[in-house]
Each structure stands twice: as C-alpha cells, then as structure tokens.
C-alpha cells in the first residue's frame, strides 16, 4: 500500500517535472473555436484542414517550441457559449492564442477576455467591420462586407450602370452590404432606386423579383446568407425572367462559395461576384495549396474562403511566435509585432493594416463558369490593395 503510494507520488513528481520541462522547449497552444458539427460543420472542417496543410508545409515547431491546436466545437451562433469555451481554453488549457470564430457575435463575446488575459485573437472569418474596434488584440485574416462591396459598386458604376437596386437579407451583414453599396454606388454617380430587405427565413422570392422588375433597375446587388436561400434567390431570378430581361446580377462572393456551387448548378452561371479568394485563382502558390489539400484529404471540394482565412491566420500566429523569439507570448506585443506585416498567400498579396488590424488584400471580380465540368468562380479583374472601408465608419 505504502509502496504504491510512493510510486504514485514519484510518478506525479516526475510528470510535473516533465510538464515544466527545460525552458525554451515549450508547447504553445492555440485554441480554435468554430462550428465542427451541425449545419455549419463544413466551416470547422475547412479551418482544421487548412491548419493541417499549413503545419504539413511549415512543420509543427517554431524554434524550439511545438505549436499545438486545441479545437472547441461551437455549432451555431451562441455568444454566451463562445465566451465560456474561450474562457476554458484560457484558464484550463492555458492557450497563448485564440483563433477561429465564424459568426460575428461569437467573436465579439471574447473581447473582454482577451484584454484581461492579454492574449491575441486571430479571427479566421467573422466579417463585421466593428469587431476589430472592440479590442486592440484582434487580428483578422478574412474579409469584411465593405471590403468586398466597395470595389464591386465602383465597377458597376464604371460599366455604365446608372440605376440599380439592392436586395439583401434583413440581418446584420445584409444591412452592412446595403449601406456599403448605396454609399459607394451613389458616390460614383449611380442611383439606388430601391433598397429591398428580405426576411432572413423567406423561401419564396417571387414578390421581391416583381419589385426589382418594377423598379426599372438595370442591375441588382444581392446579399443573402450562403446556402438554400441563395439557391432559391438565384433560381427565382432566372425563373421570373429577370435574367432574360437583361438585368445584371451582382453580389459579394459569399453567394457563390465553392462548396455551394454544385447545388446552385447552372442557375449560378453568369453571376458576377467580388471576393477575396477563388479556388480557381491562378497562381503557383494556390495550385500548390489546392494540390496539397487534395493529397492530404482526398479531395479539394471543401477548399473555399474559410480555408485561406484559417491558412493565413495560422501564418500570422506562427509569425507572432517567431517574433517572440522563444520567450513568453505577450498578447499586446505580439499583435504589435505583426502590424504592417506583408506576405504572399494563396489568394494573393496580403498586408495587415496597422490601424484596423485587418488584412488589406486584392479583391477579385469573378464570374461563375464551368471549368473542366466543374463550376468555378473565374477571376476576370482584380482590384489590388483594398482596405476595410467599414472600419470606424459605424457609430
């Protein structure tokens, strides 16, 4: 009895000594909060795969430190749960970084936590401009609706379109898109003849199509959450003859994200969108990224904008660890060290804007076309160095 007790004590002491370990060879943990199950599970999957691709390319160690990712499932927008999970990651798992966050409220929920714990939070997706204003420890590697919409509205005005109508889902991002579109399009001499807000859960879009037709607009700017709603909207647009009548269809690229394209089918062809990443982006780095993905996971069907968000976010985290030079990670200093950082990503050149801590990037104008029997967003034009136009714009 005493012997087992002594052994156990010895074992515990040994374990503790191991855990403490020699200085400079620590394990740096990164907590990733994202949807890994449920209807948005594909997002978490793309995050995880992109992180694994990055680690396969760049190794799991930085200097003497091993980088370990800890995943927490948050299957839907639930800020209270997001905060509880992040708190657990900080207090129990002792993570040095938080990352992930698909929905805006989930990302906003952790602002007080990361300030108090002095931990950097790298947002892989959540796209409302105001997030990075809430804490100086947020860095974001995705996009914002303003960033995608402003170049699109300018492009539409340049095409000679004078009368346009906006049709958006009636929730935060939709209203952001509507505001960004109206401001930019009218500044460039166009007129927004009608601003339509559609209930988030509507499935029948025929009445809205009638309003678009009645407004006499030459083009429509549409934003809906990706998935069935977009599908129904695009189908209604074709079926009610708006497409045949020559009304042009524009929108941010969320509408035609890669995993949804097979479901959208031919209804999607010809839709022009603006976005920060297309799987069909023509660069050696992107081809290598997609090929590596296929090699590791058997297919590249899940590669989309959330993949590059996570891939580049992982790159930023690695850079922060490098900058700390093996020392303890100080959140404020780590964020400071990546301000103004520029690098080449599968989506093109990126720079972290020192003020907004959001990536300044090239936004591409794309059209949905069939490439080798598969629908892809084919890039037609690029607008380099687009910042987040929405930063500090809202009250």
């Amino acid at each position: 009895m005493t012997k087992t007790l002594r052994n156990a004590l010895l074992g515990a002491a040994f374990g503790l000594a191991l855990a403490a370990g020699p200085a400079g060879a620590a394990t740096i943990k990164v907590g990733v909060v994202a949807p890994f199950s449920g209807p948005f599970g594909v997002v978490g999957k793309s995050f995880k795969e992109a992180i694994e691709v990055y680690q396969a390319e760049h190794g799991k160690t930085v200097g003497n430190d091993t980088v370990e990712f800890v995943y927490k499932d948050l299957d839907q927008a639930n800020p209270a749960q997001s905060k509880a999970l992040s708190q657990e990651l900080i207090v129990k798992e002792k993570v040095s970084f938080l990352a992930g966050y698909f929905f805006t409220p989930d990302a906003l929920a952790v602002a007080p936590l990361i300030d108090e714990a002095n931990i950097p939070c790298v947002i892989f997706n959540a796209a409302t401009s105001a997030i990075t204003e809430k804490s100086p420890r947020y860095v974001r590697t995705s996009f914002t609706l303003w960033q995608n919409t402003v170049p699109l509205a300018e492009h539409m005005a340049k095409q000679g379109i004078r009368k346009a109508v906006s049709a958006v889902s009636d929730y935060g991002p939709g209203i952001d898109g509507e505001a960004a579109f109206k401001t930019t399009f009218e500044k460039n001499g166009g007129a927004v003849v009608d601003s339509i807000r559609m209930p988030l859960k509507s499935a029948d879009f025929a009445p809205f199509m009638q309003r678009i037709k009645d407004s006499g607009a030459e083009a429509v700017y549409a934003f809906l959450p990706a998935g069935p709603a977009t599908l129904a909207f695009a189908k209604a647009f074709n079926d009610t003859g708006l497409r045949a009548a020559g009304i042009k269809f524009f929108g941010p690229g969320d509408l035609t994200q890669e995993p949804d394209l097979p479901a959208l089918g031919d209804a999607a062809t010809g839709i022009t969108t603006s976005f920060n990443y297309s799987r069909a982006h023509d660069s050696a780095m992107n081809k290598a990224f997609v090929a590596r993905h296929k090699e590791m996971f058997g297919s590249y069907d899940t590669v989309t904008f959330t993949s590059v968000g996570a891939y580049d976010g992982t790159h930023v985290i690695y850079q922060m660890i490098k900058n700390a030079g093996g020392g303890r990670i100080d959140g404020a200093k780590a964020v400071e060290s990546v301000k103004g950082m520029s690098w080449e990503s599968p989506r093109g050149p990126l720079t972290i804007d020192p003020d907004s801590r959001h990536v300044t990037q090239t936004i591409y104008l794309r059209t949905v076309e069939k490439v080798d029997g598969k629908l892809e967003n084919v890039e037609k034009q690029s607008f380099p160095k687009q910042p987040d136009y929405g930063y500090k714009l809202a009250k």
Partner: protein
Amino acid sequence: MTSVAERPDPMTDPMSRHTPPAARRDLGWIGIPLVAAVGLAAYWLLPDDLALLTRIAASALFVLSLDLVLGYGGIATLGQAAMFGTGAYAAGIVAVNWNSDPFVMLAAGGLAGGLVALVTGALILHARGLTLLMLTIAVGQIVQEVANKARDWTGGSDGLSGIDPAPVLGLFRFDMFGRTSYLFALAVLVAGLMVARRIVRSPFGLACRGVREDPLRISAIGGSPKSYLVALYGVAGVFAGVAGALTAVTSGIVGLDSAGFPWSAEALVMLVLGGTGRLYGAVIGTAAFMGIHHVLAASDPFHWMGFIGLFLIGIVLFLPGGIASGFERLGALLRGKENRA
C-alpha cells in the same frame, strides 16, 4: 413534439399519487441545501471549469422556470426562450445605457420576462395541447424577430455586446477566471429554488397542480383555471427573465440565439432528462445534459452529437421519469428493504 412534451405527465402522475406526501416533502427539503453544497464543492474541486459551471447554473434556473409551467401547470410550451431572451436583452440594454449593477440587471430581466409572459400568456393560454405548442413557438419567433429588427437597441444579429457589469455589492469584480460569475450564479440559482419551492407549496401552487390534473373540477369548485395558468406562466416568466439576465451578467453579451427555438427545445430535453414536476429535477437534468455534452464535445469535437443521442435514448428507455425518478426509485427501494428488515 407533443409526445415529448406530454409524455412526462403520465409518468409523474402515478408517482405523485403513490408516494406519501411526507416522503416527498423530506426529499424536497434536502434538495436545496444539497444543490448549494454540491455547487460549492464543485467550486473547489473544478476550479478550471467555472465557465461551464456558470452556464449550468444559469441554464438550470431557466429549466426550472420551464418546470414550473410544464411540471406544475401542465402547459406544453416550446417558447420559454422568449422570456429568457427578453430578460437577457432587457438586462443588457439597462446595463449598456443606464445602470450596470448586477442586481439591477436581474431585476430588469425578471420584470421584462414576467411582463412578456403575462401579456402573451393572457392571449394564448385559452388553447391547449398542439395549438398551444404552436402558439408558444410563434411567440418565441416574434420576440426573436423584434430583437433582430431593433438593431439600434439590440445589435441585431451581431449581438448586444459591451455589457460590463459592475462589481457585485461594489466589492467582487467579474474576473476572467469566472469565480465571481460562478458564485453569483449559484447564489441566484439557490435563491430561485427556494422561491420556487415556496410557490409550488403555496395554495396558489396547489391550485395550479389541480388545474393540471383536472381543470373541470377547479371550475366546479369556483376557481378559474385560465387565470391560475396565466399567473403561473407570468411567475415562470419572471424566473426565465432572471435566468436570461443572469446569462447577460456572466457572459457580457446577448445574442439572438437566446430567444431562439433551439434553446426552448434544449431546455425541454434537459427537463425531461432530469424529471418534471420536482424542481430539483431541472437542476439534475441541466447538470447532466450540459456536463455530458461538455465532456463529449471536448473529447471529440467532431462527432459528439451522435453520443449525446445514444445517451438520451438510454435515459428514455431505462429511466422514463427522468434521472430524478431514478433517485426516487432507489430511495423507495432502500426504504422498502429497511421496512422488511
């Protein structure tokens, strides 16, 4: 959906008839100090899991409010989150604009939740069964849509953030380790349990139980079943509102999900799991469901949902009256042995 909502009744009815009232009273008396003791023990034993424990305490208060309407009033509802969400938003709006004292927030939440429950209850409680179930869902959807539309006040789908509650009694700050949050939530839960116990044992509570058993007889002896139910619904709304406010205090943010249908449904699952009509069944069910959810999701964040399903099926098959009924059966078994010996 009805089958889930109404199944507990036949299970609890024989139970309440066969168990002598004295035995039930004893168990109920022990329940509350036990919750407090277990809660405090968890504070010392699991100092790294306070975030989860805080959520369990706040959710348990919400499930308790559902137990009041379903377990004691027999009101089948899938819209209890309407009151929870209203309470959370009311507390958040008060904190952001006027006063961020945690007790003021709780009061605002309780008031708002109670008001919404009284108004909607008076409108919908003439219905029973499936119709009522649908009406409660509709109320939930309306509250959620109002919160989505009133972006200036609620932040819409971005959530109402920036809630920074003042220290409790001016002394205990809400820190990131969640110590204050947890003890505060536990204290509110224990207080809620005491008040709820007082209510269900009062003449009013007994009358509500009478309505659940036989509304016709209550009318026959001169009572108005509907007004009893509306009052009970309002009281439960106060509980749900306080639970929502408690979540706003401890998490610092309120999202649209807090008034959503999935939250109502999940609360119902937790209640059925724990056992209806017992008060502490709500606490047991919430702790069991969220605790197991947490362990499974942490060990396998990708496939945990399947295991939760298996667990629920197991409980429904082997303990149809909920986990609490299992304890009661065990107690009865032990007592039976003693008597024989």
